Structure formats: C-alpha cells, structure tokens
C-alpha cells in the first residue's frame, strides 16, 4: 500500500464487451472509462443488464473484454495470457462473490489460506487467525462451511479475499444472499478495510443501502457510465436509481 502513488489501484480504459456476433450480438459494455484511486470504496450500480457484472468480471480478469484495457496497478491484464492473468488475479485481486464460493471440504481457516496455497506458499497462520478474528470468526476457524450460517460464510470469504493483501477488492453483490442485518456486518467490514487498512474496494450492488457505505457511486446503463454520486445516502441513491432514464437522456 503506497498512498502517495498516484497510479489508480484499478483503471479501465475504453472497455467494451460484446457477446455473440452479427445481428444477435449483445453489447454489455460500450467504451467504458473508470478509475479507482487507492483507498477508496466505490459502488457500481445500474439496472440489470446494465453491464455491471460484466464490468466486474473483466476488471477481475475473469472475462476478456472485446476491446480496451484493464490496468491493475498500471499493469494491463488484457494482454496477459491466461496463466499470467490467473496468477496476477490470485496475488493482487481479492474477490467476494454473491454465492460465497467456499470449498466445502476445507475449514474456515483453510479456505482463508487457500489463495496463498494456490500461490505456492504456506499461509501465515497468525495472519489467517487475525483476519478471521477481524471478521468476528476467531472461534470458528476449524469449522467447515456447512456448519456456518450464510453471513458467517461470507465473512470467511471476505477474510479470504483480504489474505493476499490485494491491490483491489472486488465484490459482486456481496450482500445479495444475506438478510439486512448480516448484510450490514459485511458492509461495515468492507468499510473498515478501506478506512483501517487503506484497501481499495469496488462493489457491484443494486441495493441503495449497500451503496450508501461507499465513498462514491457510479451508475451504468447499457454498458455506459451515466452518472456519479459522491458521498451517497440511501435516499439519494434510491431516487437516482428511480430516475436513471433522465441521466441517459
């Protein structure tokens, strides 16, 4: 973490993604430019089909954009081959999925340490324990995911996303599968990782409450950036969402 470094943690330039070809082609992203400064928390919002999930997949190196660049700490992910992209993603990007994606046969602690193992190193037990304690699961380290509640599983997933000290933490509807109280815990933890650790967080959500935890909300419609809202409140976000068509016009 270098707060003085002006390079954005993550930046996309001219990002386009088209599925299919010919007359049936669907444009999910159309020439999108976005930059996320270090130590910021950004929420990406938009109606379904607006391209927010595609954006996140491209930003995470999970999907290849049709054209454009994805700069992770200034390094273009798009030009990497699959192996190099996988390694960079593993080492420098933390990802929190809506459906947790824990491995059912590994304990909470083993799940948290998995990205480190996949990178060929031994997870630092103290660091794993500290992360689990930070997400409030210090006493659940040896439990299997099947024995944890949804909120607890997502907290394990959050600890896992942070274990490599990534340049950016990407979250795809991280609270989508949770009730409002457990959702609040996750959002508070995300917020704390930005304020306390200087983490950069980019979160896709459709929930105005979740978005209100961010420093800024960006709105996508039809794969284009149509608006920004700094210091969002729940009401402001909700009313903006209700009138997205005006932004487009």
């Amino acid at each position, binding site marked *: 973490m270098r707060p003085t470094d002006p390079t954005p943690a993550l930046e996309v330039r001219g990002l386009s993604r088209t599925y299919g070809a010919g007359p049936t082609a669907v444009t999910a992203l159309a020439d999108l430019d976005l930059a996320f400064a270090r130590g910021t928390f950004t929420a990406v919002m938009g109606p379904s089909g607006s391209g927010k999930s*595609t954006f996140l997949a491209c930003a995470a190196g999970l999907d290849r954009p049709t054209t454009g660049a994805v700069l992770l700490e200034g390094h273009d992910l798009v030009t990497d081959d699959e192996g190099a992209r996988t*390694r960079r*993603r*593993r080492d420098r990007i933390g*990802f929190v999925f809506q459906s947790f994606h824990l*491995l059912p046969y590994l304990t909470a602690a083993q799940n948290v340490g998995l*990205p480190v193992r996949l990178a*060929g190193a031994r997870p630092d037990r103290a660091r794993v324990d500290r992360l689990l304690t930070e997400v409030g699961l210090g006493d659940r380290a040896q439990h299997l995911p*099947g024995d944890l509640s949804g909120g607890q599983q997502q907290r394990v997933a959050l600890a896992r996303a942070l274990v490599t000290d990534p340049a950016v933490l990407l979250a795809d509807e991280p609270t989508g599968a949770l009730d409002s109280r457990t959702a609040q815990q996750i959002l508070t933890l995300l917020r704390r990782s930005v304020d306390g650790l200087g983490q950069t967080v980019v979160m896709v959500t459709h929930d105005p409450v979740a978005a209100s935890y961010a420093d800024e909300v960006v709105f996508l419609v039809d794969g284009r950036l149509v608006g920004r809202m700094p210091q969002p409140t729940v009401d402001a976000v909700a009313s903006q969402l209700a009138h997205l068509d005006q932004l487009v016009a």
Partner: protein
Amino acid sequence: MSTTTAGLAARSLRHRPRAAIATFLAAALGTVLTGSFATLLQTSFTTSGDDAETLFVLGAVVGGWGAAIVLFSIASTVGLTTAQRMEEMALLRTLGATPAQVRRLVLAEATAIALVGAVLGAAVALLTGPLLFDLLSGELVGAEVDYAGGIAATTAAGLGVLIVAVLAAAIAARRATSGPALLTLRESRAETGRLPWWRVVIGVALVGYGVAMGIVTVTVTADDPDPYAAMSTSGSSSILVGVGLAVLAPTLLRWGAAPALLLGRRSSSLHLASYNTVRRARTLSAVLAPVIVLTSAAVGTLMLVAIDARTLPAGTPEAGTITLLNNVVVGMLALFAAIMVVNAFVASLAHRRGELQRLRLLGATPEQVRGTVLAEAAIVAVVGIVAGTLGSLATVVPFAVARDEGVVPDGSLWLPPVVLLAVVGLTVLAARTAVGPAARSVVAGEAR
C-alpha cells in the same frame, strides 16, 4: 407413478447425461458378464453327468463371483450418482416435494436407465454366452453337449442387475431425503466419518470368510488327492476379500489419505486433494472400490494360474483348459473393473465441475486444478493397490502353501508389480481424461 414424476425424471436425465451413462454402462456391462455365465448354468440343466456338474460349477460358482463384483459395482455407481444429487433433491423438497416424491423421482430415473442397460446387456449376452460355451466345448465339457442357454438365463441376469440398481438407488435416496428439507440443502454436510453398521458387518464378514477359506486351504484341502481341491477353496478368496475391503473403502481411504495430509503441506494440489479425500471419502470410495477389486482379483487369480501351471505335473488334460478359463475369467473381470474405474471417475468429476471452476475463480491455474484431481487419483490408486494386494494374498499365500511353494510363490513375482503399475496407470489416466474439460472450462461463465 405420477406423470409429473416421470416427466421430471425424463427432463432431469437429459440434463445430466454423464451420470446416466455411468449407471447405464455399469448395468449393461454387468448384465453381459453375468448373463454369459448364466447361460452356462441354464445349459447345465439340460445336460447330465459330469458335464452338467462342470457347467453348473462354472456357471454358478465362477459366474457367481463375477456377479458379486458386478452387483457391487452397480450398487456403488448408482449410489454415487444418487448421492451426488443431494442438492437437487433438497431443492425439490424446499419447493414442496415430499420425501416420497423425491425418492420416486430418483427411483424412476435409476430404473429407467438400468432397464435400458439391462435389456441391451441381456441381448448382447445372448451372443457372448455361446462364445463362452464354445471356449469350453470339447475341452472341459464333452463336444457332444449342446448349448442350451437362452433368453431365460440372460433375462434372469438382467433382472438381478435391475433389482440391485433399484435397491441401491432406494437406499441412497432414502439417506438423502431423511431429515428436514432445509438441512439437506446445505452444501456437503460434514460426513459423519463412520460407516453404517451393516456395511462394516458385510465388509468384515467377507474378509473373514476369505481368510477362513485360506486357512481351510492350508489345513484341509492342501492334502486332498485332487489337486484342484485347494484351488476351489482358495481361488475365490482374493475376490471375496477384495469385495470385502471395497465395502470398507471409505474408511480405508480416510486412513490412506493421512500421510498425504502431512505431505500436502508442500503442494497446494496435494493439500486440496488430501482434504477432499478425507472429508469426502464416501464419494471418492466409489472410485476406490473397483480399484481394490480389480487389483485383488487380477493379482490373486493370475498368481493362482501361474502357481498352478508350475506345480501341476505336465500332461494333466484339464490343466490347459483350466488355465485358459481362469485367464478368461480374470480378463473379463479386469476389463469390467477397469471400465468401472473410468466410469466412476467420470461420474464423480462431472458432478464436481462447479467446484473445480470455483478453484479457478479463486486463482488456481488449470494445471493446479488438474494437479489436484490427479493427486486424488494417485491417493486412490495407492490405497487401492495396497488394499488390493492384501486382498490377493488371501488366494496367493494359501494356494502357494498348498502346492508346497511356501508362503512366497517360487516364480512369477514380476506379475504383481506389472498389474499394480497397470492399475495405477489406469486410475491416473482415467482422472486425467475426466478432468480435462473441467479444468479448461471458461471461468467467465460464473461472473456473467
């Protein structure tokens, strides 16, 4: 059965062709194998004298052992593919399906697939039965004896296979639908780690019976004037003990993976593989079971044949035929078991595609995913050949002692390593083939 269930079953089948193919293959091949021997049995009923007895022994005894392996493999394949549908069954139940409805759905599917497999297998057995008979005719059986096998024998074999398949599906479905609906929706409840008592009883009984037959061989039949008496008491022991150990496979797998847990600290693939093996021993044991039986039956029977050929005075008219017959039997069983190994791997991996893709999402390279599955295969192969070799000793040692070669046979010691290498190669190759598409699959599918 309601039309809803039938319609749902048909659609669900189309959705999971690989699991269906696994069950189908097991049922079809199993019926071919048991059906062929059943035609010998049927022929024996219309024959008289020594020939009738020979045919009866071949059909009932040899075919019986084949049937034991076949039925066990079918039960384990059907059990595997049914257990893999826990999530889907739980989903149906949360939508309001009663446990009985879910069980009917699973049974309808298993019955449909096994029925198609059994019918096809029975038809093929009508052709392979005469082939098997031709092999014996003029050798073990008088040339004047006419083949009298037919549709009755192969139908009975098919029926047996069908009953076992349906029974196995019923047991697995019952286990999956017991308890409240929501609980079962949780992904992979931690396995209890303990085998049901009846499995332990069956396994221990089979192993115990095999060992007892070995003792009988050394103490009683070894001194019998008929040189084949010792073979008749010890010949099937390796298959018996092998099946017994295969019944206990989940426990063996858990023990066997323990060293891998320690080694796993060095490699991420081995780390994942060892924990998956320990905590999902029951799923993976469907792959281990045929490996054990294959190793045990192949090593045991081949060594038996080799010892027999060395120690029996030349010129015994039956010797050549018995060797041939033993080789045919072991060849058929080995082929069957080998197909079951591949079958089980494909079926178990088809279900884990989502999980392997999850690993890719978390940053595992395709090589790491492939490495994990190969490491699992290696653990299975090693546990399988160790258990299988132990099982084969139940035949080899008593028979070697009975033929005065001592505890260690005098020759053909190159045989076991060759079989073991073949088994390891087969297991790892099966895993490699099966994992290919899963490791490569495009990751983007998830995030879209």
